């Protein structure tokens, strides 16, 4: 008689213990709190939910958060591609140092990054003073928010593109050159398409991080309602007003968007695994 098994048989002990603990810990720390957030949101009736969605302050923060994140992630794709290309393809002095410093935004606490960027970009700061004679203010404007989001999103595209570029088969390039393609044609028509899944993954990760970012942004943002107020900050304000329903509604919307992005990343990866093999 065959029994239907959950897992395939193995002589290695400890499945019940480790699997049980993993599931329990995952549920207590992650799943239950997140489900709780959605349940809190569902306590709202439609008219109140609709009022939050259409409120001018929420709409402004939504546009600012997603707009600035989109522009920052796009910029990250451009400089991320540049940096990944330079690190993988060229040999130069301080290459290892450049490679190591890229992860700085992951390692540097966001509050530290926030006050440092603000000190740099205020009109008296080292960079701010280069722009203030032309009437360009960076700190406390949406431009400042964009700068902070570029900072924290910088490693994502580099780190997703880099391994794919390292594994890229030089023979394909040689074949393209032999067949008469110019260098530019080879890069645009042969190399870039192979990097596309990695670029999309890096872009999505940078975008998702930027939308949720708080620490590095609030110092440089100015935080004026309807002008330089990002979505996470609006949640904080609603919390301070003890308007838990509104805070959880905004959070649930942000969370849903993050999940959709996560789903997108997984789809991109399974698509590229099928098309290009494992990357």
């Amino acid at each position, binding site marked *: 008689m065959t029994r239907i098994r959950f897992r395939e048989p193995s002589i290695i002990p400890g499945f019940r213990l480790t699997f049980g603990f993993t599931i329990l810990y995952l549920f207590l720390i992650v799943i239950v709190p997140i489900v709780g957030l959605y349940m809190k949101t569902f306590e709202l009736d439609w008219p109140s939910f609709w009022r939050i969605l259409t409120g001018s302050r929420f709409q402004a923060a939504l546009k600012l958060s997603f707009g600035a994140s989109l522009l920052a992630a796009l910029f990250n794709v451009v400089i991320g591609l540049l940096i990944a290309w*330079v690190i993988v393809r060229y040999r130069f002095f301080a290459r290892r140092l450049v490679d190591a410093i890229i992860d700085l935004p992951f390692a540097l606490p966001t509050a530290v990054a926030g006050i440092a960027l603000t000190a740099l970009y205020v009109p008296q700061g080292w960079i701010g003073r280069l722009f203030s004679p032309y009437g360009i203010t960076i700190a406390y404007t949406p431009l400042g928010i964009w700068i902070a989001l570029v900072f924290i999103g910088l490693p994502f595209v580099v780190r997703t593109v880099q391994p794919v570029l390292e594994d890229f088969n030089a023979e394909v390039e040689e074949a393209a050159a032999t067949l008469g393609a110019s260098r530019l044609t080879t890069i645009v028509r042969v190399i870039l398409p192979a990097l596309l899944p990695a670029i999309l993954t890096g872009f999505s990760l940078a975008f998702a991080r930027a939308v949720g970012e708080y620490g590095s942004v609030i110092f440089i943002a100015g935080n004026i309602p309807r002008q330089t107020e990002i979505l996470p900050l609006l949640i904080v304000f609603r919390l301070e007003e003890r308007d838990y329903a509104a805070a959880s509604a905004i959070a649930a919307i942000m969370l849903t968007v*993050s999940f959709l992005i996560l789903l997108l990343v997984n789809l991109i990866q399974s698509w590229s695994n099928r098309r290009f093999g494992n990357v």
Partner: protein
Amino acid sequence: MSKGVFKKSVSPVTEPPAVRYLLIGLSILVLAVFLVLPLVTVFVQALQMGLWQALATFSDPDAISAILLTLLVAAIAVPCNLVFGIAAAWAIAKYRFPGRSFLITLIDLPFSVSPVVAGLVYILLLGPFTPVGAWFLQDFGVRIIFAVPGIVLATIFVTFPFIARELIPLMQDQGTGDEEAALSLGASGWQTFWHVTLPNVKWALLYGVLLCNARAMGEFGAVAVISGKLRGETVTMPLQIELYYQEFRALAQVSAFSLAAVLAGLALVTLVLKSWLEWRYADQLAAGNRGH
């Protein structure tokens, strides 16, 4: 990469030297402006009134208690996620069962949650106005939210995946051959784990702990929402930096950047150790982190 047969010919699979130098220069310029300058600024601002004024920060009781709280929180959060990471990697990598990749996706979930939302979910679940929160407060006299337990929980949440995601791919690559050999030679489950599995993954484990710790000590958003910011009680280093920074006195600015310089120093140490691990033990880390 092939070299041209004739000295003057340009290799068809690389760019002309001028383009190469331009791209290298441009990359270094971008990194200098976006990454190095902010880092340098932290130290310059901390030292603007001299070294003694910067060091005076660390005699402020608020700063001392913030440093101690940060150490305490990391000392609880990192081991919790370490145990979880090992258990999860063992269950997922050493056995085959349906839904493993979905489980990995769930483990990665906290990375895509905004820090502010991470703090909020615990307030909604355990705040003093909720049944669970009220029960803890009345029956045990324990405050969770706007107190240290909440800070620890939020930190565990935001650093949840770090160690597991380093171990899972590596242990999947390593397979079960070593463990099966040890078990068939008569080792017990624990012996196999201590003497076979753990030595196989120790560098990846250290790598994960390093990243987990850096994030645990530097977390701002999730902790800011949940802490209540009682000076000397529920203020961690990143929160104390914010409090100093908002005082707008020149001396407080120096304190903010001095405390920030400590965390920036921690970030630099983390980066150096991380690069060293990637370089020295490339073959013993998960594939994504092998020496770039």
